[in-house]
């Protein structure tokens, strides 16, 4: 994994690929690598869909090895949705396969000469780029079927659906899973539109003939990986809760906390939450012959996903995640799991971020475009997006644009990106991360809950009012570091509670690369990533005024707890002081 594949899509005669050494980017992976390249090579004021933006696809430092949970893929660029730097990451098979093929990153750069659509095929023998306009406007499912027919079933696909081709600000890069279905997505920030702007429909990977990446010290690596697996399996979240119920295990609890955004953030509790909870979802899947426990890539031992089948037992989609069930469910007043699963399927097929899409529909419902709770109307709205009708184009531009077009005041976005499934008036510390993240409102920016072990930023006194700022800062630093390893963020729970499991992760990195990293080094890596991202945003014109939640969170008390967001602006402005 010591080379970068650069594809100049504007080259004479069509896109040209060239392998380059990692050079100054050596030692970086995942988000650290995507953000380093964007920060150095992309002019911050460029148009996100223009010649100067780049799309970087990078596996993590441990991807392609036998390390459990190392299958996250980072996709970075300047975001068409937010105008900020963006790293969206995804599970699926691609990170492992790309790393085994030896690539630290693929960089799509330049501007196509015309609107020809290309497919890229990469295997051990090299790279082939072919024009294929027959792929135009295919959904991800049909596209993958075509690729399977052409290249066989040992492949992995990185692709865009119609939303990416139409360069919608809500558009994803899809990654196929173990069953070769396009169910995993680098979803946030409109990264699919940047791939669409480069004229690349699909990158097909085949690692046949390539082995696992070899560590510098195999014995130490094996020992550390065993300790790592043991730590994940013995923890009640990673070993029991997530495998049994998936991420939607959170629905009942967040609802009980009164922080489950309902009907476009008007309420904090959804009266039909139990109909769409993780417990009900798992039972529904199991009773119909689907699966409530399943991984999204080989080497996943947490198995937080599943297979959702319809009433007749036929595959419909992967198990919709907590954020998806919330966005299309409670946020739109929809209480029917089958409808939510259908919306998830359509999102995956068109290449849409489920959080952004659900939030957009919630705003549209608030505007009276459809009634809250009308599942059929919601499905039809997503179909409008897939077809690219004028209404669909508006909705596909995201929540902020939809709010403006329909004159809605309650528009839950930060830096143009929709808020995820935790109302910041209920859990205010998460609101700090939403407001200040370099990525726009993003729950995963402050997800890696390992800060008390990392001691990032020193000891935090939880009794001090500024504790929420400090905790959020530390969480964001830790998350940036984890995002660089290729590790799934869900490892964080075991790492939080079990110092020996965190040490096992560091030991794996050290054994693989013959390093002697300490927890402090991991902290420094996280800080350096955030610093680069923040600097890019500053040069792109973002100021402290953009690190704010929408006004309604400060003015409209959330029913049940009757709270507004109370963290002061001047406190938010101290987040990057370290």
């Amino acid at each position, binding site marked *: 994994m010591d080379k970068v594949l650069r594809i100049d899509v504007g080259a004479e005669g069509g896109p040209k690929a060239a392998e380059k050494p990692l050079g100054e980017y050596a030692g970086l992976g995942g988000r650290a690598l995507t953000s380093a390249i964007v920060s150095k090579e992309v002019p911050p004021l460029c148009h996100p869909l223009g010649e100067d933006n780049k799309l970087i696809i990078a596996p993590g430092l441990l991807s392609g090895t036998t390390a459990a949970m190392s299958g996250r893929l980072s996709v970075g660029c300047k975001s068409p949705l937010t105008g900020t730097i963006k790293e969206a990451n995804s599970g699926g098979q691609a990170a492992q396969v790309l790393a085994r093929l030896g690539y630290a990153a693929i960089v799509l750069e330049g501007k196509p000469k015309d609107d020809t659509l290309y497919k890229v095929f990469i295997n051990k023998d090299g790279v082939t780029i072919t024009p294929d306009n027959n792929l135009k406007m295919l959904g991800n499912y049909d596209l993958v079927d075509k690729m399977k027919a052409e290249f066989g079933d040992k492949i992995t696909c990185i692709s865009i659906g119609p939303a990416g081709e139409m360069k919608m600000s809500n558009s994803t890069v899809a990654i196929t899973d173990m069953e070769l279905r396009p169910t995993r997505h680098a979803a946030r920030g409109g990264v699919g539109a940047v791939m669409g702007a480069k004229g690349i429909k699909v990158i097909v990977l085949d690692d046949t003939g390539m082995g696992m990446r070899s560590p510098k010290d195999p014995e130490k690596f094996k020992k550390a990986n065993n300790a790592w697996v043991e730590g994940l399996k013995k*923890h*009640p*979240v*990673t070993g*029991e*809760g*997530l495998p*049994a*119920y998936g*991420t939607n*295990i*959170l629905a*009942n*609890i*967040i609802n*009980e*906390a*009164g*922080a489950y955004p309902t009907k476009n953030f008007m309420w904090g509790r959804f009266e039909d939450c*139990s109909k769409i*909870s*993780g*417990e*009900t979802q798992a*039972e529904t899947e*199991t*009773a119909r012959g689907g699966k409530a426990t399943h991984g999204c890539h080989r080497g996943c031992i947490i198995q*937080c996903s599943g297979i959702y089948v319809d009433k007749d037992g036929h595959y419909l989609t992967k198990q919709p995640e*907590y954020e998806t069930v919330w966005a299309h469910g409670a946020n739109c007043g929809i209480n029917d799991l089958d409808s939510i699963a259908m919306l998830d399927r359509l999102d995956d097929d068109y290449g849409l971020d489920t959080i952004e899409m659900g939030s957009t529909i919630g705003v549209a419902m608030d505007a009276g475009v459809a009634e809250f709770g009308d599942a059929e109307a919601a499905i039809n709205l997503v179909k409008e997006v897939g077809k690219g009708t004028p209404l669909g184009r508006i909705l596909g531009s995201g929540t902020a644009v939809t709010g403006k077009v329909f004159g809605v005041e309650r528009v839950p976005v930060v830096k143009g990106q929709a808020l995820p499934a*935790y109302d910041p008036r*209920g*859990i*205010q*510390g*998460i609101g700090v*991360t939403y407001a200040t993240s370099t990525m726009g409102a993003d*729950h995963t920016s*402050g*997800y890696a*809950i390992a800060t*008390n072990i990392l001691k990032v930023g020193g000891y935090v006194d*939880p*009794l001090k009012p500024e*504790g*929420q700022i400090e*905790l*959020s800062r530390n*969480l964001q630093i830790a998350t940036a570091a984890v995002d660089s390893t290729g590790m799934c963020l*869900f490892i964080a*729970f075991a790492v*939080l509670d079990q110092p020996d499991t965190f040490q096992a992760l560091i030991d794996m990195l050290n054994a693989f690369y013959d390093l002697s990293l300490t927890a402090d080094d991991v902290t420094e890596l996280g800080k350096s990533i955030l610093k680069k991202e923040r600097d890019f945003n500053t040069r792109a014109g973002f100021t402290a005024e953009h690190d704010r939640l929408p006004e309604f969170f400060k003015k409209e008390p959330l029913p*049940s*707890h009757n*709270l507004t967001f*109370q963290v002061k602006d001047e406190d938010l402005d101290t987040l990057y002081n370290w």
Partner: protein
Amino acid sequence: MTKLFLIVPDSLIRRFLLILQQGFALKVHVGCTVEELLCQQLGLSPEYLEERIQTIFLDGNPIDDVTSAYVRSGSTIALSAALPGLAGATLRKGGYYAPLRSQISYKQANYTEAAHEGLVFLKLFNLSLKELGPVFLSQGVLVDGKSLSDFFRAQLRDFWEDCRVAEMDGERITPMKLREITWQEQYVFLRVSTR
């Protein structure tokens, strides 16, 4: 109040658990702490409460100390095992990240109430539902009549074929008959066991 007793195979217990996540009522002695209610009255071991129940809500407020949170008549208590995500860690009782939700944390009441009989509402989620649900079902719980009617109407043929015994107010009835009943009353006493 209608009293319903069912005998079903293990495989059907899972479905009844879904009713319990919505909450059920129990007649207990209120005017006590959460710990006293759960351990002394409902029989949870202190170890289970300490280690397995990681998140507890009292009337929608996450609590950090079970020995000081105070149960009143009509209180709703929700129990959950460990949860993922920053939100999961934040809501954990006495957790490091509790300050992130300080605005909704349970604040100790400045009054007490003499112990007396009353109803409390219990919600069981995720692994707590799986582990404690069958025990509560076998002892009997008070469930909302409409929810129970909806539950029976939603069941498919396999449920009715596998349901072994149904007794209503002491009278044996054909299980399928339960589909036709619409309970108007607030509570039905439901007991479900495997033998």
